């Protein structure tokens, strides 16, 4: 035989509906008294079972240096790589010739949270964050400006590391 054909032996007398039904009912009844697994979300934000991954890519955060200035050097790589074209960057330059962003805006509605901006950033300035509660009262508030990106405090995403694919 060239191809290995495995003939399944089908169970012949597996027709016991009465016993199967009773077994199923016993099972569901037992489950009524088992501990509940639902996380009570607004009261209970994160538990050991239900914490979001460190690789979660949420709304952005811009890191600052010791003097509280933006780490961004306005190199223009992130608006270049952004597949959703949601980053608006106008570079400026001070007297010492240091480049900094005059305007840096991310439209979180257009963002697809791919995390390329964080990956491409040479200064490790822009990051996607481990954060998911983003409600606002107006659409305008979803365009994050530089000040807003600075003031975010949530942890930043570690992204996926090819040398440590399982995050260990």
């Amino acid at each position, binding site marked *: 035989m060239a191809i290995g054909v495995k003939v399944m032996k*089908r169970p012949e007398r597996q027709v016991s509906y009465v016993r199967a039904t009773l077994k*199923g009912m016993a099972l569901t009844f037992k*489950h009524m008294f088992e501990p509940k697994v639902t996380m009570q979300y607004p009261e209970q934000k994160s538990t050991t079972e239900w914490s979001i991954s460190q690789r979660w890519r949420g709304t952005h955060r811009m890191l600052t240096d010791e003097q509280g200035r933006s780490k961004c050097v306005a190199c223009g790589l992130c608006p270049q790589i952004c597949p959703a074209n949601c980053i608006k960057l106008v570079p400026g330059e001070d007297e010492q010739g240091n480049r900094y962003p005059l305007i840096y805006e991310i439209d979180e509605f257009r963002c697809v949270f791919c995390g390329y901006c964080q990956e491409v950033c040479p200064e490790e300035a822009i990051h996607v964050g481990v954060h998911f509660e983003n409600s606002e009262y107006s659409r305008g508030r979803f365009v994050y400006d530089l000040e807003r990106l600075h003031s975010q405090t949530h942890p930043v995403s570690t992204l996926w590391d090819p040398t440590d694919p399982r995050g260990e």
Partner: protein
Amino acid sequence: MTPEMKGFLLLSVLKMVFVFTFVMVGVALLTLMERKVSAWMQNRRGPNRVGWAGLLQPAADGVKNILKEETYPALANRWLFVLAPAMSFIPALLLSGVIPFAAPLPLDFDFTLGPLGRFAYHGLMPMVVADVPIGFLFVLAISSLGVYGIALAGWSSNSKYALLGGLRASAQMVSYEVAMGLSLIPVLLMSGNVSFEAIIRDQQAGLWYVLPLFLSFFIFLISGFAETNRLPFDLPEAESELIAGYHTEYSAMKFSFFFIAEYANVVTVCAMVTTLFFGGWDIPGRWDEQGGVLQTIATGGFFFLKLMFWIFFVMWIRWTLPRFRYDQLMALGWKVLMPLALAYIMVICTAIYGIEHLAGITDPKPKALALFGVNVVVGLLVFGLLDSGVFIKGSSRRQTSEARSGRAAVTG
């Protein structure tokens, strides 16, 4: 009008208000109970945001449903589209009026109420809105009217899914009505009467009918599931096949009328099971037969407990068993339950004749015990056969037997 007649009218109105309120509030709470029970069985918590433990959830749902927009499909038959929810809702509600829910209450009053005149009542007041002498025949007749609402809802929506749902519902309900009606004949043979009051009295004197008429109970329960379109027989609204079946096109309050009708039907079927097979309001022992206010309250509470158990049972089944395939459903109704019910009628006829005329036992209790003995034998036989797959074959089994016969044909 005589004072007695006025007293009777007054009491009837009071009972109507009580039963109507009880059923409507109960049905609303049943939607919550369904969600809670399903949640518990799936290790979830269920609704717990609105009110204490989610108790106000039905009210929130109701407000939402009233405020939502009523939509009409462009090509729907507007009249029937509006009429259909009412047509499925009214029969479901009507039935709650004929189920006795407690032992008769001894009443004795005679008073004058201003211009309305004298009201008087002497004697036992049956705790049922309408003590109809035709008993469960009335229930069978009215409950089969519910199919019109569902079939018309499906047809008038002018949508293929709704129409398929309506057709399935009518075929299913008509088929299972047969088995349901036949399964009640042994009850009639046993009690000699169709009135609920007489049936309860007979069960009080003998045994609850679930013991001497076990298979009737079994068939009635299964047909009851099919009649109320509940899982495992919810093919009229099988969401994986028909979106929502006959109420696909309905929105807002009209949609929730179908839900109310479904739950009211569940309550009715459970009340029927309780009354016909579990002694109605009867508490085991002799205590409740004396009559009195205390007895009435206690029997009412006991009836409620039994009713709640069966309602829970219906939900329990729903969250345990998967949906049947349509041909399996029809095969179960026509090829298993109906012949089984017919055979059971013959067995019970013979047994009752034998016990009453040949053995000469006419006392309710020994008669019921003797029938119970017969039932143990018959029940073991039937469940043994069911279990071994003689009545219903699993698809894998059918396949192999077909394959075998095919192979035999080739070699032969």
